[in-house]
């Protein structure tokens, strides 16, 4: 039915099977949309946010998807500015994932502000002393960049590419993509950093507060660094999941290994910096504010030392070391393990810097404040996940997302066609020399 839209040289499942597979995902999407409408029509009383938790599950999800979507800007930076040309075989997918992550982040923010019709206030009535203003500016502008990077992929659809204007537009956009990629890297550096900076400047909350370099707290640099390090991990993870779902190899190992190697070194250097930052904070910064380390990890039901060990050690150092060494990096199972741990690690870091910061008591007479999201918050957080799966599925089906797919999965013609072509060859060979068969004629 949709054969004319499917890229040349690749095979896709029948449309009914495709639609049937997406049905459960669509149901989750509809559940999320229902919860979203409740939040918009009835207000933020649908959530469990309160005076203690102005930032809650949504902001964690926001920061997590922005970090995981960092694979787009960092892969673009590596390909277009550093010149790692092998990454051209995975850059389309990295852009797609980045597009999904950033559009999800904007959607979550649109729900979180409660009154989306006033979303433009942050641009027009900007508070230029807020790091979140910078985040809003850069996030929106970078989303435009991601749209620009995604549009050529859409226009490369078999039917759209037949239109000369679209074909030329795609060609022209590819020609100056380095300019857009550089702009994207510039914007990403600042908004990733400012998201970290928000926690780092909270001098009234010693769990988040960090020392500064000029006006920027250490967390500014750690957030940018971690997004560049762990974003490619997420790209590799989703690539592997897509390969598992489709039952095909979509990207050559050398491309994945190169991205994993770069990601591994970034993660290792990040882990060193994060460990040094944690030690300095525990030994100098927090005591200067009247706190000791145990104040942050005891006397509550959820946050123990385990979360620190899990974030920095098991999901920080371990995946970094697994990806740095060639032998472990090129082992399929260990690569899976490393990228999964990396994705959990960066998500956990964002959880700690958003939610644990708000849970820790800041006065001797205040107790830990724990928070449980409402079902509406959970549903609207799953909404972008469902949307992402659907967009990946449609993009994979109709767009040339993986340039190496046709080479890695050659299509064998059906047996009937092979026999027909063989007999045709034989009859051509049997014909008298110089006499053309009808097809040749």
């Amino acid at each position, binding site marked *: 039915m949709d054969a004319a839209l499917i890229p040349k040289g690749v095979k896709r499942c029948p449309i009914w099977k495709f639609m049937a597979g997406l049905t459960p995902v669509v149901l989750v999407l509809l559940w999320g949309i229902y919860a979203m409408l409740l939040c918009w029509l009835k207000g933020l009383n649908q959530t469990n946010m309160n005076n203690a938790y102005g930032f809650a599950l949504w902001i964690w999800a926001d920061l997590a998807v922005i970090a995981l979507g960092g694979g787009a800007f960092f892969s673009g930076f590596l390909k277009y500015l550093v010149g790692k040309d092998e990454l051209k075989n995975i850059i389309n997918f990295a852009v797609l994932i980045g597009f999904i992550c950033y559009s999800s982040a904007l959607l979550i923010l649109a729900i979180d502000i409660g009154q989306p019709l006033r979303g433009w206030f942050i641009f027009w009535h900007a508070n230029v*002393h807020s790091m979140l203003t910078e985040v809003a500016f850069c996030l929106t502008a970078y989303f435009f960049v991601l749209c620009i990077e995604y549009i050529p992929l859409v226009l490369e659809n078999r039917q759209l590419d037949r239109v*000369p204007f*679209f074909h*030329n537009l795609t060609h*022209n956009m590819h020609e100056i993509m380095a300019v857009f990629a550089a702009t994207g890297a510039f914007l990403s550096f600042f908004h990733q950093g400012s998201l970290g900076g928000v926690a780092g400047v909270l001098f009234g909350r010693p769990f988040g507060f960090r020392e500064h370099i000029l006006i920027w707290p250490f967390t500014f640099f750690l957030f940018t660094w971690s997004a560049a390090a762990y974003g490619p991990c997420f790209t590799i993870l989703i690539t592997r999941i897509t390969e598992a779902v489709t039952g095909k190899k979509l990207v050559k190992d050398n491309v994945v290994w190169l991205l994993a190697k770069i990601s591994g070194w970034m993660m290792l250097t990040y882990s060193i910096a994060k460990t040094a930052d944690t030690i300095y904070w525990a030994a100098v910064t927090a005591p200067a504010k009247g706190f000791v380390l145990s104040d942050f990890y005891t006397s509550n039901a959820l946050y123990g030392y385990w979360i620190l060990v899990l974030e920095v050690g098991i999901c920080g150092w371990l995946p970094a070391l697994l990806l740095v060494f060639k032998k472990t990096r090129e082992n399929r199972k260990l690569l899976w393990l490393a990228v999964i741990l990396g994705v959990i690690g960066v998500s956990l870091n964002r959880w700690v810097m958003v939610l644990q910061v708000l849970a820790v008591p800041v006065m001797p007479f205040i107790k830990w404040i724990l928070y449980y999201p409402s079902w509406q918050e959970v549903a609207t957080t799953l909404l972008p996940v469902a949307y992402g799966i659907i967009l990946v599925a449609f993009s994979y089906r109709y767009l040339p997302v993986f340039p190496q797919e046709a080479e890695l999965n050659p299509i064998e013609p059906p047996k009937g066609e092979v026999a027909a072509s063989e007999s045709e060859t034989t009859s051509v060979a049997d014909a008298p020399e110089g006499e053309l068969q009808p097809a040749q004629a």
Partner: protein
Amino acid sequence: MFPFSFEWIWDMGHMVFHGGLWYALTIIGLGMTYCVIKAVVDSSKGKGSHHH
């Protein structure tokens, strides 16, 4: 916000924040304008029509 808006103040914060935003948007806008105009010109010259 533009410099001619009543809320605008000529201080470092406004210049850096809004300067950065408009700088990025200008690059994106000019880049896309170039691509679209060149695509129109190329199409009018018959370029890319061999894909039919």
